[in-house]
């Protein structure tokens, strides 16, 4: 049983719903923000997740980065210590999907020494009628960049828990893997 802490950077274009995802994830209940408020710089949301089928818990420090490019330079300084990232796009907005590559680039430029991993999330699944990016395209991009892919709706609180469960189990498995390596090293040196 262990409690791990990880810094999760949430990035993506403006108005794709990063803050909504963070709030819905952080408070579980219907915390969906009904009015739009552009995030200045970044918000910090805490979220604890019990890893399925184990006693382990991961506490996420959700670093909800502003999608506004004027903050990009200062955001990058704060991204250096991230452990994982989550790139969000809006399935009804093709441009936000196109920009995912740019966000990924920015994140990888500013990543520090940590061995990071990430997920790609298509938000606003409730607006199926206005869909402009197919699930297939999302999956393809995610696979080509070695990320896991999710679609969710922050408004209906659908598919959000799955994202965090995945991130939490991956984080714990990295921790366990590290321990196994160290224990193996210990056995070999003596």
């Amino acid at each position, binding site marked *: 049983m262990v409690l791990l802490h990880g810094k999760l950077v949430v990035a993506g274009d403006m108005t794709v719903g990063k803050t909504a995802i963070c709030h819905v994830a952080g408070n579980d209940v219907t915390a969906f923000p009904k009015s739009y408020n552009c995030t200045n710089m970044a918000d910090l949301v805490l979220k604890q997740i019990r890893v399925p089928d184990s006693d382990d818990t991961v506490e996420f420090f959700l670093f909800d980065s502003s999608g506004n490019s004027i903050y990009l330079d200062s955001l990058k300084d704060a991204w250096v210590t991230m452990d994982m990232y989550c790139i969000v796009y809006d399935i009804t907005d093709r441009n936000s999907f196109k920009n995912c590559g740019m966000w990924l680039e920015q994140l990888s430029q500013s990543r520090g020494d*940590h061995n990071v991993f990430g997920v790609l999330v298509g938000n606003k699944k409730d607006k199926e009628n206005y869909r402009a990016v197919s699930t297939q395209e999302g999956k393809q991009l995610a696979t080509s960049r070695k990320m896991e892919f999710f679609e969710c709706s922050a408004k209906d609180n659908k598919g959000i828990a799955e994202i965090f469960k995945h991130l939490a189990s991956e984080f714990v498995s990295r921790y366990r893997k*590290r321990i196994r390596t160290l*224990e193996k*090293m210990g056995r070999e040196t003596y």
Partner: protein
Amino acid sequence: MTLTESNAFVSMASSADQDYPASNILDSSEKVFWMTTGLYPQEFIITFKEPIEFRHIRFVTSNVKRFVMFTTSNQEPKNFETIFEKTLPNNENNLQITDYTLDRSIDVRHFKCVILAGYDSFSSVHSLKFDAENSRMGKKY
């Protein structure tokens, strides 16, 4: 039983995994270790029931990027003074062994180490040894 085990104990640690406890730091074996469980900085304090005097420090870690060490001779663990600060090279997940000799022996009741940054989300501390060398009959603490 060595003095290390009887006189010193870890009085505070910022990460707690019951299978890899901070008490492993004082265990003389490098096979057992203390894991940090994510985010930096991470720190631990070692308290000596009887104050000790030492000059040498041997610190064995993995994935630690930068650390600072402090000591105090106060009864209470406060007013720490910096004794040593170092950035370690990335040893690609292997053990990092740091040997350091102070200019002079110092009297210590509380010893604090802060890991400021790591080369991965998780770092580990395998052992920490203090050595007085020529002072006080060269006892190892």
